[in-house]
C-alpha cells in the first residue's frame, strides 16, 4: 500500500529519517518514537507537506508524479492544529468537504458522535486546544481516503472523545478498508483493535515489528 524508495528527509546536512526501501501493507500502524525522533517529520513527508529525496507512493500513485491524485487518498491531522481564527468550525468543515470531496452526512455523523454541534458556529479563535484537536480529527476523516495519518492523536482530548476516536478508526478500517498511521509516544489502547502493527523510529531509521 504505502511504498518508500530511497526516502531521505533531512534539514541541511542533518538527516532526520532515512528509509532505503519499505512497503507497508494496508492496516493500522502505531508509529512509536521519543520526542524529536522525527515522527511528525515522517508523517508530514508522507502526507505531502514537506520536500524529501526519493519516492513515496500510495497504491502505486506517486506523491511526486501525481500529487493531486495522491493527496485525494491521504488525510492528515496535526498534533497541534492551527487554523485561521476568524473562521468558524463549520466553515472549516465546508472547506475540507469541498477539497476532499466529502459529504455533509459524513460530517454530521462525526460532529454528533464527538458532541461538537454546540460550538461549531463560533470563530476558531475562541476554541480551546481540545476543541481544535477534535475539529482536526473530524477534518481528517472527511472524504474517502485510503490512508489517514494522525499525529499525536491522544494528546489534549478527553477520555470520552478518545474512545469515540478509537471507534471511528475501527469503523473506517473495517468498513472502508482505510489504513491508519498513528504517531504517539504514549501507548495506544490496543485492545480496541484486532491487529495493530508497530513502527519504531529510532536514530532516523524505521523498524517495523508486529
Amino acid at each position, binding site marked *: 500500500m504505502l511504498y518508500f524508495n530511497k526516502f531521505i528527509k533531512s534539514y541541511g546536512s542533518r538527516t532526520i529519517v532515512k528509509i532505503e526501501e519499505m512497503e507497508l501493507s494496508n492496516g493500522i500502524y502505531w508509529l512509536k518514537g521519543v520526542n524529536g525522533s522525527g515522527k511528525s517529520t515522517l508523517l*508530514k513527508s508522507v502526507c*505531502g*507537506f514537506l520536500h524529501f529525496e526519493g519516492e513515496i507512493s500510495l497504491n502505486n500513485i506517486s506523491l511526486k508524479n501525481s500529487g493531486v491524485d495522491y493527496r485525494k487518498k491521504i488525510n492528515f491531522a496535526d498534533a497541534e492544529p492551527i487554523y*485561521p*481564527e476568524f473562521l468558524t468550525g463549520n466553515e472549516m468543515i465546508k472547506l475540507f468537504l469541498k*477539497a476532499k470531496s466529502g459529504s455533509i452526512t459524513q460530517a454530521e455523523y462525526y460532529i454528533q458522535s464527538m458532541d461538537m454541534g454546540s460550538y461549531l458556529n463560533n470563530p476558531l479563535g475562541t476554541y480551546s486546544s481540545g476543541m481544535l484537536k477534535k475539529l482536526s480529527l473530524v477534518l481528517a476523516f472527511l472524504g474517502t481516503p485510503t490512508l489517514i495519518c494522525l499525529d499525536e492523536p491522544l494528546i489534549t482530548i478527553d477520555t470520552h472523545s478518545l474512545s469515540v476516536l478509537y471507534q471511528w478508526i475501527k469503523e473506517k478500517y473495517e468498513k472502508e478498508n482505510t489504513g491508519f498511521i498513528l504517531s504517539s509516544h504514549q501507548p495506544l489502547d490496543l485492545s480496541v483493535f484486532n491487529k495493530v502493527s508497530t513502527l519504531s523510529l529510532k536514530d532516523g531509521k524505521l523498524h517495523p515489528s508486529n
Partner: protein
Amino acid sequence: MTDILKKIFANGFYKMHAGALLFLFSTLIIYFFFINTLGTVPMWAVTEWNLAITLALVISPLVLIIYLIVCLGYGFKSWQYVVKQLSVTHNEFLFYSTTSFRKYIQFKSWFLVQFKIFLPLWIYTIFATVIGLIYGYYILPISILLFLAFLNAFIAYGYVQKINSLDQKSATTTAGLLTKKWAKPLFILFTYQVLDKMKLTFLITKIVSYLFIICVSLFFTETAGAFSVGTLTIIILITAHAIIIYKEYGFNEHFLYFSHNFPFSKIKMFLGPCLNYAVILFPEILWLVTTQRFDHCGLIILLGFAILLLYRSIMYAIGNNMKRFLFWIFLIFNILFLGFLYTIIWYFVPMMLIISYLIFSRNYSNEHLSD
C-alpha cells in the same frame, strides 16, 4: 525581566519594521547627503540649511506639531505591535510570570522597552533640544522632551494595564459579524485576514498607493502618455504592496498549512492567490479602468500580476526573511524600472510568469516550511 521584554518586543519591533525604517532613514540620508544639486552649493550654506531645518523643530510651532504627530503615529504603531505580540501563544507565559512583580517594577521594565523602541525619536529629539538650547530657545525644546517622556510613560503604563487585565476573548469580531454569511473559499481567506487583523496595514498601504498614483500622475502626465504613466504606476504600486505579500506568505504557512495536503495542482496553488489580490488591489484596478484604454488596462493589470507573482515566489524561495525579501524586491524593482525606461518591460511579462512559476514549483514544499 527587562532584558527578556526588550528581546521579545523592542528587538522584534525593529526586526518587523526593518524595511520601513531602512527605507525612511536611507531615503533621508541619501536625500540630505548625496543628492546632486543644480549648480554649486557652498559648504557654509549646506551647514546653515541643515541647522535651519533642525532649529525649525524647536522654533516653529507648525513643524513642532507635525513632529508630535509623527511621534504619536510611531507610538501608536509600536503599541499595536506589542499588544499583538502579547496575544501570540508563545508569549502567553508573560501573563503569568511578569505579573508577579510589583507594579512599579513592571512599569520600569516596560518604560525601558518603550524607550528602546522610541530610540530613534529620543536621539533626534535630544539632538534638536541641545541645538535649541545652544541657540537660546528653551520652552519648545523642553516641551518636546517632556512630551516624549510622557508618551513613553503613558504607553508603558498601558502595557502594564494590558498585561495585568483579565483576557476578554470576544466570541466574534466586527469583520467576522459582517462577513458571517459570505462564502470563504481557500483562495480568498487572506482577504478576510486583512479585514480581520490587518486593517491598519491595509489602510496605510492604500494611502501610500494613492499617493504614488497622484505623484506619478502629476509629474509624468505632461512628459509621458497615459499608457506609460499606468505602466510605471503599476510597477510602483505592486512594490508598495510588498508588505502585504510578505504577510500573505506568513499567513499561508502558519494558518493555511493544512492546505498542503489538499488535492490541488501546483498551478492552482500558484495562481489561486491572485483572487485575493484582485480584491485587495480593487481600488488600484478601478483607477486603471477609469484612466486607461480597455486593452491597455488589461496589459497593465497583467504586468501587475506578473510582478506580484514574482514577489510571492521569492518568498517561497527565501522563507520568512524580511531582510532578504527587501533585497530581492529592491533588485527586481530596479530591473523593472530599467525595463520601463528602455521600453522593454513587456518582454519581462512572460519571463516573470515563467520564472515565478519555476521558483514556486521548486520551493512549494521546501525546508522553509518547518514541521
